[in-house]
């Protein structure tokens, strides 16, 4: 059983957090959510892998957390508002996480935003980007 591709899957550089992705990411997002408490943040920092074993997520999801592979976390069902709690636990900013997702430095990302942001032209569809 499978569904037709959704129209929004044609948007480049974007993983829409839809119901299927939310289903796959449930325990991953529960982990991010747990980082809202100071005690949990400290416990995670002390031994990241051990802490992650408390959540029944996939090994691929655990690996993406440990590697801070931000885009992979999106692909595997993380939602950015939850993922960012990992960046905050690392004492990094939202902009830092966004810059890593784009593959640029934080300063390059800030400069792009100061110049008016990323233009939509060229970013509407995968076909428009030639992929």
């Amino acid at each position, binding site marked *: 059983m499978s569904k037709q591709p959704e129209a929004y899957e044609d948007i480049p550089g974007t993983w829409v957090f839809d119901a299927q992705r939310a289903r796959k990411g449930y325990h991953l997002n529960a982990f991010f959510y747990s980082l809202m408490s100071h005690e949990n943040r400290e416990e995670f920092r002390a031994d990241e892998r051990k802490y992650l074993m408390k959540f029944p997520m996939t090994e691929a999801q655990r690996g993406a957390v440990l590697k801070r592979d931000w885009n992979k976390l999106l692909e595997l069902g993380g939602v*950015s508002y939850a993922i960012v709690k990992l960046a905050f636990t690392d004492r990094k900013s939202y902009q830092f996480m966004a810059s890593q997702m*784009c593959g640029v430095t934080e300063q390059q990302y800030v400069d792009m935003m100061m110049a008016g942001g990323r233009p939509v032209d060229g970013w509407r569809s995968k076909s428009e980007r030639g992929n």
Partner: protein
Amino acid sequence: MAKIIAGIGTSHTPAIGAAVDNGKTGEPYWVPLFKGYEPAKKWMADAAPDVAIVVYNDHVNAFDFKIIPTFGLGCAAEFPIADEGWGPRPVPPVIGHPELAAHMVQSLVLDEFDMTIVNEMQLDHGLTVPLTLLYGTPQAWPVRVIPLSVNVVQYPAPTGHRCHMLGKAIKKAVESWDEDLKVVIFGTGGMSHQIQGPRAGLINKKFDTAFLDELSSNPEHLAGIPPLEYLREAGAEAIELVMWLIMRGALGDKVEEVYRFYHVPASSTAVGNIILEAR
């Protein structure tokens, strides 16, 4: 009789709250933004509403993924401030209006909007940043607040049309409450932005400007914008703008735009602020 006198559209970017909380509002990066909100703050001080219905979205703070209400109405007497990962914002607790909220729930459900009743919830930046922008940093918020949370985190958010209709039902609910109250309604979030993936940082000023223009004159057209168009044209998180349509629906047919401000960027977001008075 309670009356909705005006609607306020505003972004709710968390970095704005952090700038205020960490004393950075005088930095060159932030000066234009806070200057741009001064007229709105003055308008709010003059209007002095008794109650603010704040339409916002929770960002995985009050609600984890166990339960995701599409529309949740905050019925508590008081709401604590959430710890979003760096400690709670140092702002006063938010005082509710449980009597009016209870009345709204009854009216809305009988009007076929199946609201989730939320009797305990922590509030995150989605609600507190708009209060900070419009009221500054008082010891206590000078307004009672009814939070209305909308799921815009897990796709699909309710449609623009559904939101616009909910706004109309809110107007009916409020105006059938027999207490002299001046009420404002906030639509928060947006405008264009995307904060995930290699397309992060997307801004579409043309889209945002058209949205602000049509909010007064042609909300029916905005209500017909399909979700895909928000995602594609204005960024994955621009879908938050459907919350502005709840605000617009609650104002009745005729409005007058009394203030508008637009600024790029606050962090990754195009910031918009508009005040529409009901006529």
